[in-house]
C-alpha cells in the first residue's frame, strides 16, 4: 500500500471517530437509538442526481428521512420498486409527510424532452413524456412565449405535480389518510443555483378529492360510512 493511502486511512479513522464522538457528545444514545429502530417522519422521493442529496438538503440527520431516489423522481403505478417503498413508509413506519422532490437542470427531464433513443431508459422516460402529453397546451405556450429553458423548468414542476398525484392514488396513502389524517403529500422543487427548496404548495385535500372519482380505493371503508 502506498504512503498516500496509509496517510489518508489514518486521517479517515480519525474523521470517523470524530464524527461518532460528535454524535455521542450531542446525544449519548444516538447510535443506540438508531440500532433499536427507525421512526422517520418523512418519506422523500427524489431524483438520483448527485447534486440533490435528500436528507442533506433538508438539513436532517440519520434516522429522519426514509428515501427513494430514481431517474427524475417518477412514481409509476406499476413499478413494484417505488410502490414497495411507499407502502413500507406509510403502513409500517407511519410517516407523516411524503415529499416528491424534483429539481431544475434535471438530466432525466432533459432526456425526455430530447428525441434520442436511450435504450433501457426509454420505457422509464416515457412516464415523463406522458406528463408532457397531459399538459401539452400549457407547455407549448410556455415554449412559445419564454423559450426552451422555461419549458424545461415548467416540465420539472408539472412532473412533480403528476408524480405527487400518483402517490395520492395509492391504496396505502388513501387508507392511512382515512384512518389517521396522515400522511400529507407535498411537491417540492430544488434549485441548484441557490440550494433552496421551493414548495409547489400542492393542496393535498383538494388533490385527493380530485382523483377520487376514478382512483378511489376506499370501497373497503364504505360500510363504516366514513366520508372524507
Amino acid at each position, binding site marked *: 500500500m502506498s504512503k498516500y493511502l496509509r496517510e489518508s486511512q489514518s486521517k*479517515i479513522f480519525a474523521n470517523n471517530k470524530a464524527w461518532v464522538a460528535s454524535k455521542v457528545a450531542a446525544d449519548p444514545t444516538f447510535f443506540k437509538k438508531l440500532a433499536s429502530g427507525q421512526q422517520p417522519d418523512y418519506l422523500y422521493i427524489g431524483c438520483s442526481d448527485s447534486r440533490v442529496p435528500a436528507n442533506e438538503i433538508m438539513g436532517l440527520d440519520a434516522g429522519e428521512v426514509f428515501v427513494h431516489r430514481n431517474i427524475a423522481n417518477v412514481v409509476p403505478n406499476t413499478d413494484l*420498486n417505488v410502490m414497495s417503498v411507499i407502502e413500507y413508509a406509510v403502513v409500517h413506519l407511519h410517516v407523516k409527510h411524503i415529499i416528491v422532490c424534483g429539481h431544475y437542470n434535471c438530466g432525466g427531464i432533459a432526456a425526455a424532452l430530447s428525441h434520442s433513443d436511450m435504450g433501457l431508459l426509454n420505457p422509464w422516460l416515457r412516464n415523463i413524456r406522458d406528463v408532457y402529453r397531459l399538459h401539452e397546451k400549457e407547455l407549448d405556450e410556455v415554449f412559445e412565449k419564454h423559450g426552451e429553458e422555461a419549458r424545461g423548468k415548467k416540465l420539472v414542476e408539472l412532473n412533480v405535480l403528476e408524480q405527487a398525484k400518483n402517490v395520492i392514488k395509492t391504496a396505502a396513502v388513501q387508507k392511512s389518510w382515512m384512518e389517521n389524517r396522515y400522511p400529507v403529500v407535498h411537491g417540492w422543487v430544488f434549485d441548484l443555483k441557490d440550494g433552496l427548496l421551493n414548495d409547489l404548495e400542492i393542496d393535498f385535500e383538494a388533490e385527493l378529492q380530485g382523483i377520487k372519482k376514478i382512483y378511489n380505493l376506499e370501497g373497503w371503508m364504505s360500510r363504516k360510512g366514513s366520508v372524507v
Partner: protein
Amino acid sequence: MGSQAKDDFEYALKSNESWANYKSHQNPGLFEKLANGQSPKILWIGCSDSRVPETTILGLHPGDVFVHRNVANIISPTDINSQAVIEYAVVHLKVSHIVICGHSACGGCGAALSEARVGGVIDAWIAPLKALRKANAEELDAITDDKKRAIKLAEINVKSGVDALLSTYFIEEAVRERGLKVHGCVYDVACGRMTDLKCGNAGKKGVAGVKGEEEEKKVVKGNHGMLVFGGDGASISIR
C-alpha cells in the same frame, strides 16, 4: 392538517434554508458550480432506511454520489426503475465505482426471514430475498442470534446484487473498457461503520486490466472525499 404535522413540515423547509446558507458560506460558488452539471464518481445503491443516508455517512458533498435507494437494496435485472438509474450512471455519467450497501437491522431482511406475510406489494418485492434465504437456509439456520442472522442475509443479498450487476451487459462492457469497479459492503447502524465484503471485481487482481489501479483498488474517491476499504472496516475521508 394537524398543527404538529404542519410544524414538522415547516421545520424541514427551515432546515433547508440553514443548510443552503451553511453550504454556500463554507464553499462559496458551490451552487453555481452545481448548476453547471454533475460528474459523480460513485453510484450508491442502498436501502431506503432512514438510518443509512449515503452522503451523510460517506461525509461527502452534493455532486459526489449518484443514488438509488429501495427497500432492502434489491437488484433485480427486470426492475426497470433501478436498471434505468444504473444505466444512466454507468453509460451516460461514466461513474468509476458502484457501491451496493446493505445494513444491519434491515426491515426487508427481517421480513424475508419471518414466516409472516407483510401484505400489499412488499411480499412480491422481497421475493428475491426469500429465494436467497431458501438457497442459504443451512448457513442462516445455523445462526441462533436473530440480529446476526439478518446481517448474514443482508451480506448474502449484497453479494447477489454485486453478481447481478457484473452480469449486466453494459456493466461488463464498462468493466472491460474503462475499469469500472463494483463493491459490496454492509453498514452497521449500531456504530456508524461500514465493512467491505470484498466481493465484486474491486478486490481481485487483473480483472479490470487498467494500469496503475492496483494501488487504488481499495479506495472509492468522490470529488471531495473518498471511501477507503481496509483495516477493520471501511471509512470516509474528505479531501
